[in-house]
């Protein structure tokens, strides 16, 4: 080493050490600055005492002791650092991120206000919640989701063609919800009210993946987004409930009953705005808080597996056929949805390169037992299909969904099995799931657009 190289090499060592320090969550950049100054002081003194810079650096680092111990001591003083805090307007440390997230905040507030206003626009045309309940039931997602899609499209910098496609989809949705002559008490109204949100949510998905809609990775991000969005929405609904209860009761205590305000303004407007706010929260906190959907999945996968296996055992033991009443198919559809959700959210959080483990086997057991139950149900139904099944929009929709979910889960089970036997990589399973998303969208749109005329608006 020449004398000229010495300082440079020392600087590189300092830089390396600094990176090492910054990897600790307990130690922040200012601490690293302070400790680096300390280390430099120590090195200077040792060099003055006659050591070479290299030796001095080693001795000084050694003197400072292990970083584990150091971060433990720091954690005792700064325990808040172990809790990642969501700073709503971005990291104050980086001015660029700050302006970006402040702009996000304003656009989100604009979109949320838009959603809030949209809910009340029909009231201008004399449609009230009390008398036109079915209008609001069919259209509710049309008030909120376009604004969420607008926010996401803005955030992704969507191209014009994507924006145009989004607009077209929402217009088609509005037409499908309102143009058909559906009686308020018809089955088709219910079927449309259930399927239109699904169809529109996948349009929101298109806005979410606007920057690269073919990529399986982006679609998986959308699945993650959906789970977190839902959890945030539920939490906000709880908070909103508490707020309304307080508002109602405190005002009632002074003789003003704000029933109309709460039921006509606060709840519907708040719900529409919450849809947008939840989307923004998921985007803002993406890297701040650990995703909760996969955690719930981990907790509930074993429990659901146990419940399904117990049910199967009970069916075999009692040799009691499953009683397929009117709502039974819907129940088992929902079961498949839950199982699919458990599968999806554990896929979403799994390290794709990790080898198959016990949890994957557990999942296979879950999927296979759900499939077995569903096959039992379908056998039961085919026995009766000649009587009355499939003759109404409700049953046709439920049956269609069952087939779609069955196909998905059956192939997932096969892929899971080959993954456990190390025949296929994990990525195949992920691609299968993300590639399947358009199927749900297509089916939801078919139900919304084709079913009402097909069943003559029954």
């Amino acid at each position, binding site marked *: 080493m020449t004398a000229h190289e010495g300082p440079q090499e020392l600087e590189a060592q300092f830089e390396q050490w600094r990176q090492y320090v910054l990897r600790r969550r307990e130690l922040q950049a*200012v*601490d690293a*600055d*302070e*400790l680096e*100054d*300390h280390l*430099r*002081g*120590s090195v200077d003194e040792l060099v003055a005492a006659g050591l070479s810079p290299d030796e001095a650096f080693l001795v000084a680092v050694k003197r*400072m*002791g292990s970083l584990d*111990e*150091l971060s*433990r*001591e*720091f954690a*005792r*003083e*700064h325990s808040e650092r172990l809790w990642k805090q969501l700073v709503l307007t971005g990291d104050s440390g980086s001015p660029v991120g700050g302006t970006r997230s402040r702009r996000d905040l304003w656009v989100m507030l604009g979109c949320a206000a838009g959603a809030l206003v949209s809910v009340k626009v029909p009231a201008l045309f004399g449609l009230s919640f009390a008398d036109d309940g079915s209008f609001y039931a069919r259209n509710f997602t049309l008030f909120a989701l376009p604004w969420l899609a607008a926010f996401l499209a803005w955030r992704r910098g969507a191209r014009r063609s994507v924006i145009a496609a989004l607009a077209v989809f929402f217009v088609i949705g509005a037409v499908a919800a309102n143009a058909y002559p559906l009686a308020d008490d018809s089955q088709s109204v219910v079927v449309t009210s259930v399927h239109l949100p699904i169809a529109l949510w996948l349009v929101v998905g298109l806005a979410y993946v606007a920057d690269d809609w073919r990529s399986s990775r982006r679609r998986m991000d959308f699945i993650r987004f959906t789970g977190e969005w839902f959890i945030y929405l539920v939490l906000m609904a709880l908070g909103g409930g508490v707020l309304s209860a307080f508002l109602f009761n405190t005002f009632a205590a002074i003789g003003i009953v704000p029933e109309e305000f709460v039921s006509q303004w606060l709840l519907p407007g708040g719900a529409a705005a919450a849809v947008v706010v939840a989307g923004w929260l998921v985007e803002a906190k993406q890297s701040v808080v650990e995703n909760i959907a996969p955690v719930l999945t981990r907790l509930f996968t074993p429990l659901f597996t146990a419940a399904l296996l117990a049910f199967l055992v009970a069916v075999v033991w009692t040799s009691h056929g499953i009683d397929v009443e009117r709502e039974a198919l819907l129940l088992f559809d929902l079961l498949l949805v839950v199982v699919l959700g458990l599968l999806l959210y554990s896929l979403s959080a799994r390290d794709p390169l990790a080898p198959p483990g016990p949890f994957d086997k557990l999942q296979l057991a879950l999927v296979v037992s759900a499939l077995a139950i569903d096959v039992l149900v379908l056998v039961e139904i085919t026995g009766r299909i000649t009587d009355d099944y499939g003759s109404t929009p409700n049953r046709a929709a439920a049956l269609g969904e069952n087939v779609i979910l069955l196909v998905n889960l059956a192939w997932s089970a096969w892929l899971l099995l080959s993954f456990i036997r190390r025949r296929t990589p994990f990525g195949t399973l992920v691609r299968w799931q993300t590639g399947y998303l358009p199927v749900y969208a297509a089916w939801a749109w078919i139900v919304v657009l084709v079913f009402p005329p097909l069943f003559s608006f029954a």
Partner: protein
Amino acid sequence: MKVAKDLVAASATPMVLGILAEGESYGYAILRRINELSGGELDWTEGLLYPLLHRLERLGHLESSWQAVAGERKRKYYRITDRGLAELAEQRRQWDTVVGALKEIWHDRAPLTVRPLEGLA
């Protein structure tokens, strides 16, 4: 002889406040000063000093500022506040009591010789 860890921890606050009462200083220099004052007997680590400085700053006993030294290098200097001086006075009063009492007990007495098994013999 090494001073016990508990005693080091208990005396840390008055020691840091006392050193900073002499004038503003920074981490490395404070550590050097403690070493010098105790003849190398007090074993302070960075893990003791810096979190303590941050705690005293949070409590308002100290103030800090970053100052440039030798080109691009930045150094965090700590200064004692009025609150810190009041705290130091209070701590000093307590330590004087403890030290006074100990001196009273040990007054004119020769150091004890250790006979650990006396009671069991």
